[in-house]
């Protein structure tokens, strides 16, 4: 058992949250990713205030398939619509799908996982076997099935993404809580007379949040990519909605002649996913720096 000798004279108000934040700030790639994502989300939320939403779908036959220029930074598509503006509005969709699905999936999966950990025994077994079965079905296939049943619209896409993510989240939360439950401070709370429910709520869950947050960011990235993939396959968001995958799908045929129609949405998806993943990596290192060395 490694014993550490820490000093007694450094800053006295260093809660674990602040320590993690400090460590994160020092990781340049994670820090800039965070800034980028905050800006992106801010833009996604605020863009309708500054730009007329009609421009997303309004066709202007005079400026068909223009290459990138000052007036149209990413060029225009075959209907004369400004690609940059479409991408901005698309951000609203893609990010919304990603964040909403991930949040719902994590919360539901988390509750299920916590129940499995808390009750143990038969309940745990049943829950885990069901989640095994769910995870045995290929994600894409399951998403396509759901979307086919419920139609290719946003709610059904969100449902599909949530279903795909519940089982892995339940498993993660279950194992982190089980890991915490063996620690002696849980026994200390029991000995003091704390009820089981309060222990799970106030002692276990706050200490299991770390890995869940890390995985959340990576989950958003992965959901965005999957949603984009589904749209590209034609079973997700349909045109004229500017969801990023749909943008690439629509530009597929013109890849050779008007590459900017595909390239820019593709780049944006890639960079955003990368940012989420870098942030997730940085969070993981910040929460548990021992893993780094």
């Amino acid at each position, binding site marked *: *058992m490694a*014993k*550490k*000798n*820490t*000093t*007694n004279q*450094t800053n*006295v*108000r*260093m*809660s*674990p949250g602040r*320590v993690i934040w400090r460590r994160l700030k020092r990781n340049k790639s994670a820090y800039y990713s965070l800034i980028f994502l905050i800006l992106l989300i801010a833009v996604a939320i605020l863009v309708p205030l500054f730009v007329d939403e009609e421009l997303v779908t309004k066709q202007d036959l005079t400026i068909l398939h223009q290459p990138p220029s000052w007036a149209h930074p990413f060029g225009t598509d075959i209907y004369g619509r400004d690609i940059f503006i479409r991408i901005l509005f698309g951000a609203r969709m893609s990010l919304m799908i990603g964040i909403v699905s991930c949040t719902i999936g994590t919360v539901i999966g988390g509750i299920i996982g916590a129940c499995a950990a808390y009750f143990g025994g038969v309940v745990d077994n049943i829950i885990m076997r069901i989640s095994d079965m769910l995870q045995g079905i290929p994600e894409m296939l399951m998403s396509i099935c759901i979307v086919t049943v419920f139609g290719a619209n946003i709610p059904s896409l969100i449902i599909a993404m949530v279903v795909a993510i519940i089982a892995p989240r339940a498993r993660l939360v279950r194992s982190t809580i089980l890991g915490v439950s063996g*620690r*002696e*401070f849980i*026994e*200390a*709370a*029991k*000995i*003091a*007379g*704390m*009820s089981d429910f309060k222990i799970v709520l106030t*002692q276990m869950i*706050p*200490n299991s949040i770390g890995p869940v947050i890390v995985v959340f960011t990576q989950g958003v990235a992965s959901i965005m990519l999957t949603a984009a993939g589904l749209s590209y396959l034609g079973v997700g968001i349909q045109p004229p909605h500017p969801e990023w995958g749909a943008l690439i799908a629509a530009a597929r045929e013109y890849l050779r002649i008007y590459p900017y129609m595909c390239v820019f949405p593709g780049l944006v998806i890639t960079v955003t996913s990368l940012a989420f993943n870098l942030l997730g990596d940085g969070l993981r290192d910040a929460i548990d720096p021992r893993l780094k060395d």
Partner: protein
Amino acid sequence: MENTPIIQTVGLKKYFQVGNRLLHAVDDISISIGEGKTLGVVGESGCGKSTLGRTIARLLDATDGKIYFEGNDITKLSVRKMKAYRRNIQMIFQDPYSSLNPRQSVSEAIAMPLRLYKESGGKKEIEKKTKELMDTVGLAQRLVNAYPHELDGGRRQRVCVARALALDPKFIVCDEPVSALDVSIQAQILNLLMDLQRDRGLTYMFITHDLSVVKHISDDIMVMYMGCCVEKAPYAELFRNPLHPYTKGLLSSIPVPNISMRAKRAHVIRGEVSNPIDPKPGCRFAPRCEFCTEACTGADIPLHEVAPGHFLACPYAEAEFKKTQTAE
């Protein structure tokens, strides 16, 4: 003459289910600790001392036997009924690194037990009590908002002691409270525990594998091996006159910081601890004992009082001891 002992167990057993077999962690332990006294429980890993401590503190449910607190049977009390006794039975754990919630500051950790009981009063009273407790255990007031990761092992353990004292308990189970600390810090914490006992009339069950520590703090000492008590005696008597072959082996295995003892090679106990799952009846130390006889296997060995207060579970050693008694 004697008041009711604070803690008493009768035939306490704790078995764990492993597949369809039973792991005998604690087997038939009967103890009695008077108010203000310390029972030292000594043994190596796997002897069941930690399980015994946790069973008495009702963190685990006993498989059989009885536990009495001040004469009241608390063995099978429900969680609700047990809460009344929780104020009086507390515990200090071994690992100062996992016995504190990393997300709670020092004051939050110490106040945690207080907040669970309405009798503790409001926010102001709790704050005052927390500060008093920090003083009592020797923690500087400036550490009120410090978090565990900023503190060293010794200070963390002081926080744990303060937390255990918060409800003014009568009885504290100390489960290897200094084993994870450096020698110079161990001494600080041991002194603290002894001072608290003297000032507050606390009763301790002090669990450890370190015989030199237990001698320092105990009134009586019980030696455990594979779930059973093999010898029990007042501390001076145990060290002056150890009878059980395991106790003797344990004592002589400890490397003494005295170079004149160097020539004497330690009496090395051969072999390893056997499997505690479904053990055969008879003395559990028999496979490693060089004095093992017919009488040692076949049936479980009961504890006999061979001298006032000195209990022993070993037919061979008992016979030898009686010989020396009659010789005198």
